[in-house]
């Protein structure tokens, strides 16, 4: 640990920390544009200038004076100094971020940054979460002295989801470094020179793109752009950032379990952004996850229970649907029932389902249903996994917790389904298609109960369809492939009369004489921590925003 004097604070920081981070940890803002903790540091924006102190050459030992040049905070790192080289006998470094020199330098740099920047904040998507706006407000001068003509470089379409408003670009090169270092695809580069610098993709002499920005991580460049230059077409002109509420959650796109922030309004989810987690996704997420939230807002979401009468599904009441299910389940032998949990459902949903199967139905036929395996994508600093479910690991453990860890999957499951009379399938998987064997097995079932969020090939076969909820509408926990248990939180209300998945299961269980009655998902997590091996610490309270790693 290095002991440094930062302004008037005497603080301890890790060796190798730079001044921007050291200041941030202690509540002091050092404005910066090109520096991003997940990327290399070119120090080209010159915004994070700070004043460092040292002993001037030739001065008597012990003299402390400001160094002649200001230093960039992002590249100035502090380390523990040997005892004879400490300042004032105890400090490893002395820096100030609040001297007149620093303040003037910030004003000067901001004036330069705004020389060619258009004042189109009223129509810019970034307004409200723009570093240039914020720092100008906090560190800039109130007016510019620039009276010459501004550069107007063209607006560019860089890829399927990315637009570049070159006029707003401050050439911090974060996006270029991201494509080189994190995605390793290197689509972006600088063209021209000096004040005509522009970010661009490779183009032929006629200006036609040779390569577009379409890698699976491309959306991150929009997040890291400190101004409104790189814009997501998906979010373009949809909402002002300050009108949206934010909720911390976990991406359901694959088993990595990227930490995300869901940004939403009353009428649905507007966008999903990555949230920092050191061990899982750092600062990033993939575009599959980023753009994959749209099913939550779909018009055709299941809102009421459906019941098949004479081969035709029609809307019914919850009471009617539950009564029909209860009657069917009490008619058949326990051995003829298969209960199938979902790798898209939370640990809490699956735990209640598992209780229902064991304690109420007395069946040991518990299966796991999930999204079909997809492709794995490996990048230098990021991996998208082939398991496209967020909670496969959790579902396996929870569903099998009272069953000797036996959970039916794939062929074994469909074999059992084909011979079953009643199947209770919790799906919640958007756009799940059925393979031939799966379809054949499900068609063979006498009475199929499907709990799902959207009409799909699965719901088409069902005798009863129960409307469930998506990740954005419920609280709970997911366990990712590397054993991290993390929380998702409710952002929006479920559509229509859709209900939480574990509540639906609990209602059926109660009608059949089940003796459990949970009132919120945190309560279930306590039950999980008491009854499931390995999940001893996995209560919502302990998991928090950081998540916990299973032993």
């Amino acid at each position, binding site marked *: 640990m290095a002991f440094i004097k930062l302004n008037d604070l005497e603080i301890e920081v890790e060796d190798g920390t730079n001044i921007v981070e050291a200041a941030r940890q202690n509540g002091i803002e050092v404005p910066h544009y090109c520096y991003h903790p997940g990327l290399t540091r070119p120090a080209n924006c010159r915004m994070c200038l700070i004043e460092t102190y040292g002993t001037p050459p030739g001065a008597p030992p012990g003299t402390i004076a400001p160094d002649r040049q200001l230093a960039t905070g992002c*590249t100035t790192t502090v380390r523990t100094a040997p005892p004879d080289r400490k300042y004032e006998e105890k400090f490893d470094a002395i820096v100030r971020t609040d001297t007149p020199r620093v303040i003037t330098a910030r004003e*000067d740099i901001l004036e330069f940054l705004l*020389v060619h920047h258009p004042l189109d904040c009223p129509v810019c998507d970034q307004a409200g979460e723009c570093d240039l706006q914020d720092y100008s407000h906090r560190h800039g001068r109130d007016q510019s002295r620039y009276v010459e003509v501004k550069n107007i470089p063209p607006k560019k379409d860089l890829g399927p989801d990315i637009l570049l408003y070159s006029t707003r670009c401050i050439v911090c090169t974060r996006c270029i470094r991201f494509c080189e270092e994190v995605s390793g695809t290197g689509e972006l580069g*600088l063209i021209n020179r*000096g*004040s005509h610098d522009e970010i661009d993709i490779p183009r032929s002499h006629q200006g036609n793109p040779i390569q577009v920005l379409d890698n699976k991580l491309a959306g991150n460049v929009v997040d890291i752009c400190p101004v409104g230059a790189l814009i997501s077409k998906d979010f373009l002109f949809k909402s002002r950032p300050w009108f949206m509420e934010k909720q911390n959650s976990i991406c359901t796109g694959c088993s990595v379990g990227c930490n995300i922030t869901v940004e939403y309004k009353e009428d649905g989810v507007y966008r999903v952004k990555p949230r920092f987690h050191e061990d899982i996704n750092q600062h990033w997420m993939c575009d599959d996850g980023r753009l994959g939230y749209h099913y939550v807002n779909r018009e055709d979401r299941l809102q009421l229970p459906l019941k098949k009468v004479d081969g035709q599904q029609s809307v019914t009441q919850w009471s009617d649907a539950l009564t029909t299910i209860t009657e069917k389940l009490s008619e058949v032998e326990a051995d003829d029932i298969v209960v199938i949990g979902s790798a898209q459902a939370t640990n809490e949903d699956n735990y209640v389902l598992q209780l229902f199967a064991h304690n109420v139905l007395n069946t040991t036929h518990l299966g796991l249903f999930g999204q079909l395996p997809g492709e794995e994508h490996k990048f230098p600093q990021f991996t998208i996994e082939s398991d496209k479910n967020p909670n496969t690991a959790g579902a396996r453990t929870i569903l099998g917790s009272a069953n000797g860890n036996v959970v039916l999957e794939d062929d074994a499951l469909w074999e059992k389904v084909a011979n079953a009379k009643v199947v209770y399938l919790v799906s919640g998987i958007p756009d799940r298609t059925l393979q031939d064997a799966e379809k054949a097995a499900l068609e063979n079932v006498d009475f199929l109960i499907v709990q799902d969020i959207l009409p799909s090939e699965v719901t088409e076969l069902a005798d009863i369809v129960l409307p469930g909820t998506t990740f954005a509408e419920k609280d709970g926990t997911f366990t990712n492939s590397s054993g991290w248990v993390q929380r998702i939180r409710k952002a929006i209300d479920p559509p229509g009369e859709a209900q939480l998945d574990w509540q639906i299961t609990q209602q059926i269980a109660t009608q059949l004489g089940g003796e459990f009655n949970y009132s919120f998902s945190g309560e279930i997590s306590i039950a999980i921590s008491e009854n499931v091996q390995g999940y001893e610490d996995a209560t919502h309270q302990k998991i928090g925003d950081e998540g916990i790693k299973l032993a």
Partner: protein
Amino acid sequence: MVQERRILYEHLDVPNINTFDVYRQHDGYKGFEKAIAEYQPDDISKMVMDSGLKGRGGAGFSTGLKWSFVPKDIEPRYLCCNADESEPGTFSNRYVLEKNPHLLIEGILICCYAMGIETTYVYIRGEFTLGKKMLDAALEEAYQQGYLGDNIKDTGINVNIYTHPGAGAYICGEETGLIESLEGKRGQPRNKPPFPAVEGVFMKPTVVQNVETLCNLPFIVDKGVEWYTEMGPTYGDARFDPPKPDQNTGTKLYCISGDVNEPGVYELELGLTCSELIEVAGGLRGEEVKAVIPGGSSAPILTHYELDTRLDFTSLTLAKSMLGSGGIIVMNETRNIVDCLLNIMKFYAHESCGQCTPCRWGTPWVRDIVQRIADGEGRQEKITRPKFGIAEGGRWGDTGETEEIYEDLDLLESVANNIANVDTMTWNTICVFGIAVSWPAVSYMRKFRPEFEAAIREGKLVTLSVEEATVPPEENYAFQQRIIPKEMSELA
């Protein structure tokens, strides 16, 4: 009358000196042979340190000191010869490359021997097609004659030299910009530290030397340190007790252009004055000297009051200018300083690499302001600001009074100083390109302010007489603050 002292250029005019045989007949490779026969590598480094040789590329940093920073335990180490001579007004390296390339090869060999370097890259300015052709031909000959390649002259020394043409960017003459370009990247300077001596080409220790610096090495080795140090003045740094010697040894290839009768490259001992140099170059063309640029276009300008300044590294630095690359441009009474500044600012705005904010957007801004003034569209509004001049105690500073100045001139000075502050010598940029922009902008404006004011007032370019155009010495910031260094002999 000062005489030329030809050392590097001694055999420049010998027919076919670019061929190995002719070069050998004129004592070629004698320095290198002496080095490997008589000295250990460390001896050479010590000789270079003792000779007081300063880098001729622009910064004037001690070559021996630079070599001492190179870690000896990291392999491989590289030598990078900077032949990207692109400072406006400078054209001395070009003659060496085109006429006497073996001299450069010999210099490289000595440096490689001293530093234990096996690989050298010569980064040649792209426009020097003839120079590259001549050097490539000379390299081929040197390989054939066994002066390059593996196991040179059975000494076990291996040296390979590769030439690499630039693509025409001024900034690639900056040592780290050059290294980036050499590595195949965009020519943008790196943040320092680490300096190239520690992490240079391919992140390995690298010595970056100008052509002229390397060409001095054969003579230092061949004729000895004593012979070399006799040339040029040795000043005493009076801040130290006893005064610390500050050597400005050797000769310099001064490139003189502009309003002189015989422009060209003159090899002279360091330390002669501006006026003497103009005499050497055949005298002034015109009536009066209006201004002299002493070290390439980025050096602060000298007025006719400052012509007694000695043209060496120390004197010019203490006169708030610099020797730089030794490109001297003389201007007579017909030249308009606003127009000159516009020309120079157009160059810098075009050549800014665009990496860091102040330079990327500051240089075109400065150009635009000068352009507006030159077009006669300078704004008539004036502002009041503190007046700097001879303050209490006879020192330059804030006089406590105020002065009126055209808003555009204040803006010009302020924007240039925001890129790099001329008064405090601090810059917010990554490399020294920033100061190369603001030095001319601020010094031209301050020293020839009446001509700028006339352009705004009259709404067109007005060329004033030399006396009228120049601010009097008592208002000249550089003249008032300059220190004339004393030679060691005087101090004693």
